[in-house]
């Protein structure tokens, strides 16, 4: 009798195990904690292990987990204008709704197989989905419009912006700059803002240490009044040493510092990568740069728009500034501005909460 009961229990357990094993994963059941490398995401949450091992500040994140309880960016289209994208990447493809090559009017974007798919990493910070594959973006349910622009001329930049607008983007991320923006490009960007599209630019990096963009000869895209200019914060919750700054930069967001750890990213060599850093698979790596701070802001802007689609770009900028965290053990002026740290580091939770209750003046 006991033998029979044990046999029944064994078979039942085995069947249950097999049934569980065969059960397809329901994407609705997946949580961010299912992402295997989320434990390294110091920019999104406090990780006690990272705090201990890398001396990372417990406050270096942007408080986004609380914002995700309100929204994950559903329904918002974010465009990325960059160089190469791996559009079949396992940790991005389900959120890509459009892709286009400005340089190749047929629209075909070949997957880059070497180490220069900058756009792939950037896009991952915005909307890598919740799929238990690797990591997660700031707005994991937002949708991506990927625009490849390789030629460095003003006409192609304008075409890229025009494509983003016509494709329905509410946010456009640009992790690049010229320090010499042409008037017609600046005008085009202003028209986008006036049309309700929030444009975000990275402030730029210098390996010898960030420099001021206030110099007379510099006229960078990130300094335009019609964009949100973003510098990078680091693992110690202060401005990253390489991040360019100035009176026209608006905010900081985590960009990491590979001298400390770096920020977890989809590797820019995509599926063909060879990093294998700290136990990460080929698809991921720790990197740094204002290029990756800007798309985190783009993702947070998508979260804000998803809870309040009526917000104007000016209102979005104001809310991000009002709710920013004054990082660094320094003083900010009466307007809440610091030359190096701008208006501080974004706080996703506060920004989304204010956005949700904000009565737009539009």
């Amino acid at each position, binding site marked *: 009798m006991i033998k029979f009961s044990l046999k029944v229990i064994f078979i039942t357990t085995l069947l249950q195990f097999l049934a569980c094993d065969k059960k397809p994963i329901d994407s609705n059941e997946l949580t961010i904690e299912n992402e295997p490398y989320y434990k390294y995401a110091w920019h999104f949450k406090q990780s006690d292990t990272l705090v201990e091992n890398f001396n990372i500040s417990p406050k270096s994140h942007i408080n986004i987990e609380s914002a995700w309880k309100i929204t994950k960016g559903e329904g918002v289209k974010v465009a990325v204008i*960059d*160089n190469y994208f791996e559009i079949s990447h396992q940790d991005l493809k389900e959120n890509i709704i459009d892709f286009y090559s400005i340089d190749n009017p047929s629209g075909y974007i070949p997957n880059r197989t070497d180490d220069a798919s*900058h756009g792939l990493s950037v896009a991952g910070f915005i909307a890598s989905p919740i799929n238990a594959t690797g990591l997660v973006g700031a707005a994991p349910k937002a949708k991506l419009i990927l625009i490849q622009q390789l*030629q*460095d*001329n*003003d*006409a192609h930049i*304008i*075409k890229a912006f*025009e494509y983003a607008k016509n494709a329905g983007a509410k946010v456009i991320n640009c*992790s*690049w*700059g*010229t*320090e*010499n923006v*042409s*008037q*017609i490009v600046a*005008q*085009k960007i202003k*028209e986008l803002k006036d049309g309700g599209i929030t444009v975000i630019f*990275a*402030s*730029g*990096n210098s390996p010898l240490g960030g420099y001021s963009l206030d110099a*007379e*000869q*510099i006229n960078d895209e990130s300094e335009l009044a019609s964009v949100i200019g973003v510098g990078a914060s680091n693992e110690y919750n202060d401005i990253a040493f390489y991040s360019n700054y100035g009176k026209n930069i608006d905010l900081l967001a985590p960009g990491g510092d590979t001298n400390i750890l770096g920020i977890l990213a989809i590797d820019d060599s995509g599926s063909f990568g060879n990093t294998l850093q700290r136990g990460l698979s080929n698809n991921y790596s720790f990197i740094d*740069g*204002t*290029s990756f701070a*800007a798309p985190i802001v783009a993702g947070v802007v998508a979260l804000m728009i998803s809870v309040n689609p009526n917000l104007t770009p000016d209102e979005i900028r104001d809310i991000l500034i009002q709710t920013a965290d004054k990082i660094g053990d320094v003083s900010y002026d009466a307007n809440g501005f610091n030359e190096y740290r701008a208006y501080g580091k974004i706080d996703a939770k506060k920004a989304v909460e204010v956005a949700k209750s904000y009565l737009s003046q539009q």
Partner: protein
Amino acid sequence: MKQFLLSIFLYSTLFSDVYYYEYGKKVKLTKLKEQRDVTDGTFYYKNSAGQKVGVRDEILVKCNSRTECEKTFIKYSFKNTESLSSNIFLIKLKKSDDIFEISQKLYLEKTITIAHPNFIKKRYRR
């Protein structure tokens, strides 16, 4: 002596300043020595800040309206124009045209708010 002076003059014209209008100001550019991309006809210049820009045979213009742009194109007999947005156009010039001279003239047209070469500028990934 005459030949020497002539040589100096011709040499200096190779690197002479050109200008265009941008942000309401006259912007001078200096041609860079041996900086022509023979494959696509790009000439390179530097501005007063030392920033390098490339120029081919294309001008970008922004008009108050599409109609005004189109009228101006007829006036200048431009045959090869491309609409980039509702009021921004790319004009392809003939190889023999002086791109800076035409940019200056267009800028001074009442119907046109911006006119400058379609600049090639290094974009830095960040």
